[in-house]
C-alpha cells in the first residue's frame, strides 16, 4: 500500500504547516473580531450569534454524513439494514423543514432588529467628517474645524462621529473594520455612516470597492484622540498647514497616489460641489424626506441621503 501512505504523508505535512500558520496567526490582527467601537461591537456580536446558529445545523450534518457513510457502506457482511424502497417519512420531513425554519426565524429576528437599530447613533453626533474617495486617495473634510486631510482622519474618541461619504471617482467603499462596517462612496450622493472609537488609538481603514489601477494603495488611518488633543491638533493644522485651493483640489483629484496631507482650509462648500457636479441634483427626485446638515434628524448609515 505505497500510495495511500504517500498521500497520508502529504496530508500530514500540509496539516502541520497549516497548524503552524494558524498558531502564528494569533499574533496578527483579526480586525473584525477585535471591535473598538459600538458599531463594530454590534456587528461582531451578530457575527458570533449567526456563526453559532449555523453551527447548530452544520456540525450535526457533518457528523451524520460521516456516520451514515460508515454504517451503510457497501461491504460484504454489513449488518446494517438495507431498505431500497424506503423513500418517505412524514415526521422526518417535518423535522428538517421545521428546524431550519426556526433557526432562520431566530436569526432573521436579530438581523432585522439590528438592521433598523444600527443606523441610529445613541447620542447626537459630536462631529461631522466629509469623506471623498478619489482615484486613488481619500480626502477628509472637517466642516466644523474648516480643515481637510488626505489619507488620515483624526477623530475625537468616545463620541459618535458622523461621516458623510461620496466619491469623485468610480464608486468605492469606506471601511474601518475595528470601528464598524463599510458603506459605498458613490458619485453624486452623500451617504451617511456613524462610527465611534471608544478609546484613543490608530485604526486601519481602506477602500473596499475596486476602482482600478491604484486601488490596492487606498489605505488610510483613522486616529482617535481625546477631545482636548483633537482640538489641539485641529488648531495646529489651522495654523501651520497650507491651503487647499480649487486648483489644488483638481490636481488632487487627478488619478494617482498621494501621501498623507493636511490643509488649513478648503474652498467653501467643496463637498457639496463634488456631490452636485457628479449628478447630485439628478438624484434629488427620489431622495428621502429630509435635508442635509441636520445630523440629529435621521441617522441612517444605509440610507441614501442626498444633498440639495
Amino acid at each position: 500500500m505505497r500510495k495511500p501512505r504517500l498521500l497520508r504523508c502529504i496530508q500530514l505535512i500540509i496539516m502541520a504547516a497549516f497548524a503552524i500558520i494558524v498558531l502564528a496567526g494569533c499574533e496578527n490582527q483579526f480586525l473584525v473580531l477585535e471591535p473598538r467601537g459600538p458599531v463594530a461591537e454590534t456587528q461582531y456580536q451578530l457575527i458570533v450569534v449567526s456563526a453559532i446558529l449555523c453551527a447548530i445545523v452544520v456540525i450535526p450534518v457533518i457528523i451524520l454524513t460521516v456516520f451514515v457513510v460508515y454504517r451503510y457502506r457497501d461491504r460484504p457482511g454489513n449488518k446494517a439494514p438495507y431498505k431500497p424502497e424506503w423513500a418517505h417519512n412524514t415526521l422526518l420531513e417535518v423535522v428538517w423543514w421545521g428546524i431550519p425554519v426556526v433557526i432562520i426565524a431566530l436569526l432573521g429576528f436579530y438581523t432585522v432588529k439590528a438592521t433598523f437599530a444600527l443606523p441610529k447613533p445613541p447620542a447626537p453626533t459630536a462631529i461631522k467628517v466629509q469623506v471623498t474617495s478619489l482615484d486613488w486617495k481619500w480626502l477628509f473634510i472637517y466642516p466644523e474645524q474648516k480643515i481637510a486631510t488626505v489619507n488620515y482622519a483624526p477623530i475625537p474618541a468616545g463620541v459618535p462621529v458622523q461621516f458623510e461619504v461620496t466619491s469623485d471617482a468610480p464608486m468605492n467603499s469606506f471601511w474601518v473594520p475595528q470601528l464598524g462596517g463599510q458603506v459605498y462612496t458613490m458619485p453624486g450622493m452623500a451617504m451617511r455612516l456613524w462610527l465611534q472609537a471608544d478609546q484613543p488609538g490608530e485604526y486601519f481603514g481602506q477602500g473596499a470597492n475596486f476602482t482600478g489601477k491604484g486601488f490596492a494603495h487606498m489605505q488610510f488611518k483613522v486616529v482617535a484622540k481625546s477631545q482636548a488633543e483633537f482640538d489641539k491638533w485641529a488648531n495646529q493644522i489651522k495654523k501651520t498647514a497650507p491651503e487647499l485651493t480649487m486648483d489644488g483640489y483638481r490636481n488632487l483629484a487627478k488619478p494617482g497616489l498621494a501621501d498623507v496631507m493636511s490643509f488649513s482650509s478648503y474652498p467653501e462648500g467643496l463637498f457639496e460641489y463634488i456631490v452636485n457636479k457628479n449628478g447630485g441634483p439628478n438624484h434629488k427626485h427620489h431622495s428621502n424626506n429630509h435635508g442635509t446638515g441636520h445630523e440629529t434628524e435621521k441617522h441612517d448609515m444605509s440610507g441614501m441621503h442626498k444633498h440639495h
Partner: protein
Amino acid sequence: MWEKIKDFASTFFVTGDPLIYGADVAIVLTTFAIIFVLTYYKKWGWLWREWLTTVDHKKIGIMYLIASLLMLFRGGVDALLMRLQLALPEMHFLHSEHYNAIFTTHGTIMILFMAMPMMFALFNIVVPLQIGARDVAYPFLNALSFWLFFFGALLFNISFVIGGSPDSGWLAYPPLSELSHSPGVGQNFYIWGIQISGIGSLATGINFLVTILKMRAPGMKLMDMPMFTWSVLATCILIIFAFPILTVTLGLLFVDRFFGGHFFTMDGGGNPMMYVNLIWMWGHPEVYIVILPAFGIFSEIVSTFSRKKIFGYKSMVFAMMIISVLAFFTWVHHFFTMGAGADVNAFFAVTTMAIAIPTGVKVFNWLFTMFRGRIQLKQPMLWTLAFIPCFAVGGATGVMLAVAPADYQYHNSYFLIAHFHQVLIGGVVFGYLAGIYYWWPKMFGFKLDERLGKWGFWLWNIGFYVCFMPQYALGFMGMTRRVYTYGWDLGWAPLNFTSTVGAFLMGAGFVFQIWQIAYSIKHGERDRTGDPWNGRTLEWSIPSPAPHYNFAVIPQVKGPDAWWEMKKEMQQDGTKKKPVQLKPIHMPKNSGIPFIMSVFWFIAGFGFTFSWVWMAVFGLIGVGICLLARSFQYDTDYYIPVKEIERTEKALGRAV
C-alpha cells in the same frame, strides 16, 4: 505607410509582457499544429461533417465539455497567476493593471465560459436520454446555441493577445467600466463576448424547457421525471427570466460606450446604481442557474450508488422550485452597503436566509437516501460526499453574509471570496465533476481510471481547504478583494502563502484529471453493457455511447426510476424480451448555418469592439443572410430506414 502599420500593430496587439509573448507563441504554434494534423490526416471533411455541422445533442454536449475544460484550464491559470502574485507581500510578479485584467477574466471565464458550458454539456448529453427522447426540441437552435457560445468565448479570450483584456471586474461596474475610466477596447470585448454567448444561453434555456415539457417518453409524468431533469427544468425557467436582464444591461452599457449614452455614467444624469441592481438581478439567479443542475446530479448519484430510491422525491422537487422562485428576490444582498435603507436591507436579508431552508432540506434528503442504503464509494459518489460538508459550511457562511448589518463587515472582503468559492467549487465544480465521472461511460463507452481519479480527488479536496479556509480568516483581518499587493505590516502574509499552496494543489489535481482522461482513453474499463453503474434512469437502458437516434424503440414509462423498474420486471419475466416492431426514425439533418452564422456574429462583435462600423455592419448582414437562408430551407429532416437501425443495434450487441 510602414510607420502606420507599426503604429496600428502596437495598439492592436497586446505588447510589453513576456507572459503575453509566451502566449502568442503558444497560440500560433498550437494553431499550426492543429491545421497540420487536420490536413495531414485529411480530416477537414470529417471535422465539418461530424462536428461543425452536427445537430446531434450528444456531440454538441461533447463539444461543450471540451470547451469548458479548456476554459477551466484558462481560468485556472488565471487563478494561479493571481495566487502567485499574492503569495507574499509586495511581490513584483504582476503589475496592477495586469493583475486587474486577470481577476476580471478569471471571474468572467469561470462563470460564463466554464460553468455554463459544462452545465450545458450535461444538459445536452443527459436530458434527452433521461426522458427517452431522440433529440432536443429544436436541434438546429441547439447547434446555434453552442456556436454562439463558442464564438462569444473566443471573442472574449482573444482580448488576451489582441487589444487588451477587460480589467474592471467580472461584473464591470460603471462608472469604472464606462469610457471615462476604461477607454480601451477590453471592456468592448467583455460586452460582446458575453452578449453573443448570452443569446446562445437563452436559446438553450428555451430549448430544454420545451424538450422537457413536450418530448418525454409516453407515460412519463412530470412527477416521474428523474431529479436531474427536474433540476434542468428549474434552471431553464431561471435562464429564461434572468438572461434577458443581462442582455439589456450590457446593451445599455454598450449604448453608453458606443453612442455616448448616459445610462450609467457619473455625469449627464447617469446612475451607476441602476447598473448594479440590474446586473445582480441577473447575477444572483445566475448562481442558482449553475448550482441547481449540480443538485440534480447529486440526487441521481446518491440514489444510484446507495442502490436506493431517492428519499423525499416530492420534497426535493418542491425545494428546488422554491429555490428557483426565491432566487429572484435576493439580489440586493450583493450590495447591502449601497444604502437602499433599513427596510429594503431587512427584506433582502430575510429572503436570502430563507433560501437556505429548501437547500438544507435537500441535504437532509440526500443523507436519508444513503441511510439504509448500500453506499458504493465510486468516483461520482466520492465527489458527492466531498460536496456535502463543503457545501454545508459554504451555505452557513452564506447565511452569515445574509445578516445585513454584519455584511457591512464582510462585504468585498476575503470572507466573501472564500464563501462564494466554497459554494461554487464545493457545489458547482464538484457537482459537475461528479456528473462527468458518472455519465462519462455513456458519452464515450469507457470508465475513467479510479486510481488516477482518486489522486485528482484528494488533491482537489485538500487543496480546496488549504486554499480557501485561510481566506475566511483573511477577511476577518480586513483584506479586501481585488488588491494586487499588500504590505508586510498587515500580517496577511502567512495565510496568503498557505492559500497559494492550496491553489497549486488544486491545479495539480486538475493535471491528474487530464492525465486520467488520457490514460483511460487507452486503458479505461470498457462499458459493454450500457449500464456500468447499475443505474435507475433511462439513459442506462441504451448502449454506451448511445447510437445517434438514441432509442431504437421509444420506451414506455410507468413511474419514476423507469429503467430500475424495467430491470426488475425483466428479472421476474426471465430474460425473454418481447419482440419489438422497429419503425423508420425521423431525424433532423445536419446544417452548416449555425456555425457560419456564429462566425458572422464573431465578425460583428469584433467590429463593434474596435468601433470598425464597416466590419460590424458586414457581420450583421452576414447574420441576416444566414437567418434568411434558414427560413427558406425546407429539406431539414430525414428518416433512418429500419435496416440501418437493425444493423446499428446488432453492431452494438443489442437484440432486435
